[in-house]
């Protein structure tokens, strides 16, 4: 499930972007797609979309809140949940230290933000995962926050919007507990759906592994940003298994649209109005 981890784009490319993510770097940044050097302030104003080629670059969870929700309406829920280290996990670095470093680097407690806010004056339950925090992977905290979000959306009869940016899938460092979050969140979504809730899942670059194979794929409507990498197994795993070159554009939003797994590809600038319109159509 965590197969997508760290192999979401080309090897060196992924490394370069990861160092950049969540760090307020210099004045300039480089588009990951066309290589154009962009003035950071200009990119920020354009929601981190490349002015040259329209590529949708990394956007942090707080920036997502800013661009999707009406200004000043976000109220965070369950912010007090903190990750722990149930397995005493250690690879080259102990998980506890990794958590501390990620928290310091990103300013987040774990990979998800959840809460409520307004989208063009429609109240919604809102969640977002941030690929800068251990690849946006889902451990106990992400699973619990999303489950609480879904349960509260069920109780308060709110439309549910979750924006995924999770290349890591289920978080390896919490082992089986991470895997089980997939079942937990999916079960909560089953109840939400039965109660008549409207769930709009928005897939962004990258959404892989256990996140793609749970809540992210369970939207009544599934939107995706252009050119996002979305899939179950990581491209490197697939290549190593089948030993053939992967087709051009494999596992992109466009690929998924073509194969029937996405309702709409939505540009970042249109996301807010697209969500609002869908909510209206579904009478929520």
């Amino acid at each position, binding site marked *: 499930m965590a197969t997508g981890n760290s192999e979401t784009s080309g090897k060196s490319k992924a490394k370069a972007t990861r160092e950049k993510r969540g760090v307020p770097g210099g004045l300039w940044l480089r588009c990951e797609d066309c290589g154009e050097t962009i003035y950071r302030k200009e990119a920020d104003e354009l929601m981190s979309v490349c002015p040259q080629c329209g590529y949708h670059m990394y956007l942090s969870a707080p920036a997502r809140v800013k661009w999707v929700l009406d200004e000043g309406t976000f109220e965070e829920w369950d912010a007090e949940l903190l990750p722990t280290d149930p397995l005493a996990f250690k690879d*080259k670095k102990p998980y506890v230290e990794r958590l501390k470093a990620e928290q310091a680097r990103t300013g987040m407690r774990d990979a998800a933000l959840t809460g409520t806010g307004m989208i063009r004056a429609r109240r919604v339950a809102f969640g977002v995962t941030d690929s800068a925090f251990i690849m946006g992977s889902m451990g106990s905290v992400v699973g619990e926050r999303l489950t609480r979000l879904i349960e509260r959306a069920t109780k308060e009869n709110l439309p549910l919007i979750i924006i995924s940016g999770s290349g890591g899938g289920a978080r390896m460092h919490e082992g089986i507990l991470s*895997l089980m979050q997939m079942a937990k969140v999916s079960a909560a979504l*089953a109840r939400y759906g039965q109660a008549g809730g409207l769930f709009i899942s928005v897939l962004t670059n990258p959404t892989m592994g256990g996140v793609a194979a749970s809540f992210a*794929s369970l939207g009544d409507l599934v939107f995706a940003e252009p050119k996002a990498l979305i899939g179950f197994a990581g491209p490197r795993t697939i290549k190593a298994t089948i030993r053939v070159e992967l087709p051009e554009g494999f596992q992109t939003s466009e690929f998924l649209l073509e194969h029937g797994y996405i309702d709409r590809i939505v540009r970042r600038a249109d996301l807010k109005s697209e969500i609002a319109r869908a909510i209206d159509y579904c009478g929520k």
Partner: protein
Amino acid sequence: MASATYRLAFEQPIAHLEEQIKQLERTEPKSAEIHDAIRALKRELAETTRRVYSQLDPWETVQVARHPDRPMLTDYLNLLFDEFVELHGDKFFGDDRALRTGFSKLDRYKVLVVGHYKGKTLKERNECFFGCAHPEGYRKAMSKMRMAAKYRLPIICLIDTPGAYPGIGAEERGQAQVIAESMLEMSRLPTPIICVVIGEGGSGGALGIGVGDRVAVLQFAYYSVISPEGCAGILWKSHDYAGDAARALKLTSKYLHELGCVDDVIEEPLGAAHRDHHQMASRLKMYLLKSLRELVDLPTDKLLAARYEKFRRMGQFLEGDAAPAATANGRPKAT
């Protein structure tokens, strides 16, 4: 069951004793001393087997779980179920051979069996991709399970897969989406579901048929978020560290139970399941019958509420400035 021919490295002391016994048994005529020697060696063999298997490292456990002689789905179908009426096909794309479904009888219970099959011969293994199911497998499982729920046939899921298949076709046909949907569907199917990991519990491919009222693992099975090799490749940058990854992932039955992710651990015969298929099958049967007895008469709303709560409690985190001892599932923290 004939003793296994395939030997794992740590089984050497066991193999050595077995060889000695075999040689002595071939001696004719047998003097009283030889009879005594055989008896002594057999005692030693039992002792050694018990010792070796009580000290297994997680990585060794993974190798036991993958042992080619370990009983597979078809063995259990033969040994503990009265018949198996296979139901093929997802009525959409094809008939996945890595995930098999069918009606079956277990004593007085009529059930639906859903299980992974890794294959025994090379031909079978290629046919079922060594137990890695494609989306059509999960789609088939889902449709048969829905059908079973309609008639309140209990469902028994026997999990044994390295993981869902990673390939172009699998991605094109929505591997992620079918696994997600399968978990969602299983969380609310109005019939008892019992899931047992009989060998490998490989991540999403396992969990895709792993949401039930009872989730058990065999003693030397494993259940993990990612294969040890995959984890090593990502975190250690080399598959050579699979052993370290296996130890770090806490994927063995003892930890799985301590972490609150499985309800029960089913003990294996002396020297693990591959040494005694019959005994393993009868222990599994006892567990399944006991679980069925507990579940079949439960009202559906109670059944579903308990199933939801079970998964709802899984996870460990801290809340606010609470003491680190607080865990979501109320179980002690694993050490």
